[in-house]
């Protein structure tokens, strides 16, 4: 299966995962590559945990990525990153936002959020992976669009070494996908993501 690039994008319903998987798909299509993704619609979307599988390549068959088979994992929320770590191939790359969104099960425990980062880090380290953490919340606000955390991560993932799409290809797809009045702020968010990733590398 070396012909195809496989990645999973995870987060909480409403964080804009479909938007970034769309942008990647648009860029891949423009480049003449095939794309196949599998999305979650319906009930699970309502604030639940969501995962999108995305494959890019020349000849693609099944739309899902089994456990242990994804080259990269992009997480928009750290608990969700942890939840879906099993999909990553051994030694694979994780780019995760440090954002933590409250699951309802935490509400009984006032300390849960306080301890979250520590606990998540401790648990993430149990997997064989290279993990890069991005402060997407901060960078998106810096770009002037708090909602653009997903685009910050898109910028970050454009820096993955064997990723089949270039920064320019992703950026031009981004411009066609977001509403015109938000292009500028989104591009800014995208670029801040690139920088953050360069620093982390």
């Amino acid at each position: 299966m070396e012909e195809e690039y496989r990645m999973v994008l995870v987060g909480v319903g409403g964080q804009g995962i479909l938007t970034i998987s769309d942008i990647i798909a648009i860029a891949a299509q423009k480049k003449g590559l095939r794309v196949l993704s599998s999305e979650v619609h319906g009930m699970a979307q309502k604030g639940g945990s969501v995962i999108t599988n995305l494959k890019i390549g020349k000849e693609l068959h099944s739309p899902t990525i089994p456990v242990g088979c994804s080259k990269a994992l992009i997480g928009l929320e750290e608990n969700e990153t942890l939840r879906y770590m099993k999909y990553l191939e051994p030694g694979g790359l994780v780019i995760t936002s440090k954002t933590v969104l409250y699951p309802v099960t935490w509400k009984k425990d006032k300390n849960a959020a306080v301890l979250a980062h520590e606990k998540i880090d401790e648990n993430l380290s149990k997997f064989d992976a290279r993990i890069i953490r991005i402060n997407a919340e901060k960078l998106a606000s810096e770009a002037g669009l708090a909602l653009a955390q997903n685009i910050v991560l898109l910028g970050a993932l454009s820096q993955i070494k064997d990723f089949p799409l270039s920064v320019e290809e992703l950026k031009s797809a981004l411009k066609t996908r977001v509403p015109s009045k938000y292009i500028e702020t989104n591009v800014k968010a995208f670029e801040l993501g690139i920088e953050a990733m360069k620093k982390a590398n």
Partner: protein
Amino acid sequence: MVRVEELIENEEKRVLVLGNEAIARGAIEAGVQVFAAYPGTPSSEISMALIAAAPELGFYAEWSTNEKVSMEVAYAASISGVRSMIACKHVGLNVAADVFYSALYMGCKGGFVTVVGDDPHCFSSQNEQDSRWLGVSANFPILEPSSPQEAKEFTKMAFEISEKFEIPMLLRTTTRISHARADVQFNKFETTYRDGELEKSPRFKCLPGIARANHPKLLEKNETIKEWIPESGLTRIEGPEDNQFGIITSGISYSYVKDALLMLNADIPILKLGIVSPLDEKSILKFAKSKENIIFIEEVDPYLEDRISALLVQNGITPKIHGKCNGITKRYHELNAYLVAKGLESLFGSKIADFKDIEVAVTKTEEYIPFRPPLFCAGCQHRAAFYELSKVVKKNDGIFASDIGCYSLDPWVSDTIVCMGASIGMASGFSRVIKDKPIFAIIGDSTFFHTGLPALANAVYNKANFNLLILDNRMTAMTGFQPNPTEDIPIENVAKGLGVEYIVEFDPYDFEKGKKTIEEALKHKGPTVIIMRKICANEWWRRTRRKGEKIEVYHTDPEICIACGTCIVRYQCPAISWSIDTNSKGKQYTVIDSSTCTGCSVCSQICPTGAISKVE
């Protein structure tokens, strides 16, 4: 979602679309002229796309009140010579079953296609029904695409086959086809919409004498189709000719087989069936004759396995059968490439990685990973309604029959959820045998019009004593905010017309009034009807933001908040969380996220210390 302009553009081009949108495009290219549907995951995007395209292209499309009605609308168009289609989820096909069992006997004229979306793994469903059984028991020819591209092509073919043999067709997809996004080749099309004409004939009356004559004709048609399949290109054989193994598969499972064989580095003959009923017996027998081992790969039920095994026995061919019968794949949940490869590895004597380290890490982290179930949205009016109800229901130890919709997410009072419309029938039944407790039924507006109406007529007629709560959020929210008759037909008028004597209405955000109204209703003999009316908060929030209007949100005063947890632990509004910092007394407090709060005000009404107020 693909833009309508792109979906209907009459050009040869590749477009990124969902499998469901590819089906919609297939129908457009085939010249569908009447489309009717009731929403249901994973089928809804087919209907949303076609209903958006209809006014642009000039064909007719509607949201019907239920699947049965949608099929009747489309069937009438078909026997008037016009191409027509419906789309529904697997359980919706059950609702339409009464129509198609007879429609198949009578046949059709204009191409008539039913698209059914099955949901292995129950991503958004109450069961894993494999609709192929229902289809075959009614003698539907059934097509099963393996990719979004095939979904489009098979839709077009379904219309052609339907017209050629005058038989209704079933196109079966599963969630992973419907919700796969891929670049799909669109083709040019010609539309010649025309008026229908009903050629009068006794054929379209399913009276016993006629039905008796029609049944053998239906079976004959299936025989003719069976003979025709080999030349249709719907059956495909891949891989080397001579091998002791052969895999038979269809639909999404074919794609898993392809990837699994790559994982196993194995070159094994595959028989891919594009039509799974009637069976392409000629090709199957030819394929199986020389094989010592036949392996069936399919999701959920052993449909191909059982039917084809029988076929082989009837023809004296006796390879060893592998599949569900010996645990190569499971009879439940979805498959993937790895599961298929794992199932096959011992047969082929190969070995694939088994990710033991990952399993270990999963076990070690499981305990921490917080459960994140789907929830009512911030400000959801159903949450408010259920919170009020939970006070009354629990105090009176009531029995609570719920129904299917966003309100199925209720964490507090629901005792039963069965199928659409069942709340009213179930409450009627409970009222016959449970005499010392109040009985409640709760139903949404869309579900009320779907199957609640006959159940309510039944309850009035038979004088069932229960309280019916109708959550009128002005739309069919769960499946993507589709419109339904509540827009034009006031539910209170319907209830009154059916003879309900006690009917009240309130706004669920008005907390105290809500509680009192329900308490009061309990004093009356049922069926009573209590309408809780408020637009879906999520859709309202999105519309308001799109219009650029300001949303008046709420906030907590950290010094007044005593961290009792009423708003956060009990009410569970997702916009509220615990602070990381502490207030001047060293205590944590609640924080409201202003980007998700819809300003419903309920938290401020239930806060015992008055710590929550509108942001001025």
